[in-house]
């Protein structure tokens, strides 16, 4: 089946079976390897992407269900202000150990900050508990999300003053 997909602002045509999970279309048809395979059952969050801004586990979304929705992946999230701030915070806090889960973590965090500019610990846990980090970098993930949120407030405050 032929499908037209909008990924990170670009339109792609792919020819895959209708039940192919979006994860594998991204990874193997479009060569966007940042979205990771971890469990194939929406249990680990490594494959988290955004569909029209909402976080979804791409390993359980068949290509046929994507429709006209805009897909954003880790390769594209840095073009958004929230994504860029999160990537910067992730490096400033030095979150990464093995790094395999971190794309999914950042995508879940970006969706969180898009709807909640100042999440507290409980908000962060609620948004991030579906994302496993086998290296258990959770303390730093929490810190990085808070730092990215603070950056946002900082710039908003600066704008108000100006």
């Amino acid at each position: 089946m032929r499908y037209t997909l909008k990924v990170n602002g670009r339109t792609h045509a792919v020819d895959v079976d209708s039940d192919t999970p979006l994860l594998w279309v991204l990874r193997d048809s479009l060569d966007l390897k940042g979205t990771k395979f971890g469990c194939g059952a929406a249990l680990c969050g490594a494959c988290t992407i955004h569909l029209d801004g909402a976080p979804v586990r791409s390993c359980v979304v068949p290509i046929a269900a994507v429709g006209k929705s805009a897909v954003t992946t880790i390769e594209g999230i840095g073009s958004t202000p929230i994504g860029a701030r999160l990537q910067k915070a992730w490096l400033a806090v030095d979150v990464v150990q093995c790094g395999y889960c971190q794309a999914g973590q950042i995508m879940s965090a970006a969706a969180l900050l898009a709807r909640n500019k100042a999440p507290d610990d409980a908000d962060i846990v609620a948004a991030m508990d579906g994302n496993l980090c086998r290296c258990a970098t959770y303390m730093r993930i929490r810190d990085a999300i808070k730092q990215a949120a603070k950056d946002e407030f900082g710039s908003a405050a600066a704008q108000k003053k100006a």
Partner: protein
Amino acid sequence: MMQDRISPALSVPSAAPPTGLASRRDVLKASAAAGGLLLSFSLPGLAKAAAMAQAPEGGTALTAYVRIAPDDTVTILSKNPEIGQGIKTMLPMLIAEELDVDWSQVRTEQAPLDPALYERQFAGGSMATPLNWEPMRKVGAAARQMLVAAARRGWDVPESECETASGRVRHLPSGRSLSYGALAAQAATLPVPDLDSVKLKDPRDFKIIGHSIPGVDSPLVVKGHPLFGIDTVVPGMLYAVFQKCPVFGGKVVDANLDVIRKLPGVRHAFVVKGGTALNGLLPGVAIVADSWWRAEKARGKLAVTWDEGATRQQSSAGFAREAAELGKKAPAHRLRDDGNVAAALKGAARVVEAAYAYPFLAHAALEPMNCTAHVRGDKVEIWAPTQNPEPGRTLVAQTLGLDEKNITVHMTRCGGGFGRRLANDYMVEAAWVAKVAGAPVKLVWNRTDDLQHDFYRPAGWHFLKGGLDAEGRLVAWQQHFVSFGENGNFASSAGLASDAYPAGRVPNLSYGASLMQLGVPTGPLRAPGDNALAFVFQSFIDELAHAAGKDPLKFQLELLGQSELLPGRGAGFDTGRARAVLEKVREVSGWGTRSLPARTGLGVAFYYSHLGYFAEVVEASAAADGQVTVHKVWAVGDIGSQIINPTAALNMVQGGILDGLGAALNQKITIEKGRVVEANFDGFAPLRMSQAAPVEVHFLTTNHPPTGLGEPPLPPSIPALCNALFAATGRRIRELPIDSALLKT
């Protein structure tokens, strides 16, 4: 006699790096090096520097580890695989420090697999620091000396008038200076200095070591760049899945290959006869397709008739029953007998008896096992996320009947390792499938493959008696360990060292073992041996402390006694270092000084694991329904004189402790009818953020060689949690994972 036969095997699980999966010789070599033979560590990479000097890319190669470009960019190669432990940052830091360059000049690169140049290249056993602390600094110092010599020649000045800093050589009297980039070509023609002659910096002059350097690949990780094995792309590549018998050691009788071959995208479907070694190529059915999803989907239609074999009779419940029976008898093998335990127990004022048990565990690295292979004639090219590439290459060579020299292994970044990727079963599978398919093939396991075909942390059962005298001193210890093995040898990572503490501190002590036959493959999981034994030893000591009516931390200090070096790994077990971490954790945790809410308690434990000393206090509570909450962990570590990269060290300690807590709270692998029941992260649950307590970390700096952090923080976390739950509820956890029903009000 049996003691003699069993003892050597006992040290293997603790020796760690390639335990049970590599040769015994390798293990001994690694242990010997850790024991103080570092000066004799050879660096063939330096000897071959001249041959490498013509390296075309990235500037001039001074040695196999260092290249310098005309623009002063310094490329430093990291010899070992990166599995998240931060090695690709840490090893180059050691070289860069003594090379005397600024970190901003440095690029790091994964070295190719070439043991002739780099010696053993592996990630395991927290060995990278002890094995490389001095050699890698010498590598840097030698390259620096070559650059200084090149500058002196040009200037015709004595060495004493030259100094280096920030990648430049300066002639002090004249003020002239040259950058390393300008000197590299000349330096590369000079002989490599004798390593024993190079001078190393005074640690007080360190500018890179001891300073936090963020992970070198992290900027690419957060943008989703393809760094991992599973991201490998080779032109013309096909995708494979490999279905093995769910029962370990089972063989293929028949499969509906005709049906599979007709499915969309399937290019090949075939039976792999395989062998019987559980860490080699096993029997199974390979499906090769034009996409991984199509191969995986075709597997859903696969029907295989298996000859399941003898392991079908084995189960976790069956082992537990057998262990309980064996536990009533005398141990089949005596490991240690000090004093007269029977008499001491008889004469004790108080005897405590307990049985402890822990389950099989999987590694569950988040990147599933995968490997890409391309076989062309008698040559093989492999891209693998592996902790242990060299034995992998040997396995491929032996299985495919090829010369190792014709096999190239590219080490990719690994999405976690935890010991799983010390075995290279997936590597040989990929190579075999690629050979039969006649095309480059990427083999990717799904999560069920990963959880059901692991080399598990072995389950174990311990039957203990402890005796206290009238003053509450520990005078007798009797331990019967029911484990797995054959012919008097423990299965991989299923051992107990005869010198394990508290041996040497209890006058009457006996360790014995009985072994059950096991058809399930076992292997090292992060802190192998210790990740289970710490729970048993440190929990039972806590029980005895309470029975003696003493504060558990004080009881531990009394038992450790005076500073002394007892037999043990590396230089031995230093009771003084253990005391010091315990005393420090007492201070930082506020032990004994804080009032806690109801059903909340503090627990303490320590362990000497993989050359590192850690003491930890856990604050935990149990709700009325038994639900456990960990509120905080305090950890104090002594890993010697230097924390090389503080940010990575802190991350590793926090991760290791939370890993241990996750295992204690959530995890078990269940064997039924010779196969694993758990199939995904719903059944086998790594710790999630909601369970991740803050971990406060302190290091003691001591005058001992620096050592690694992959393993040492983990073992004490489990007994510290269980001891905290006892303090909170009065209920003793003697079996893992923690059953919250036992903690209900």
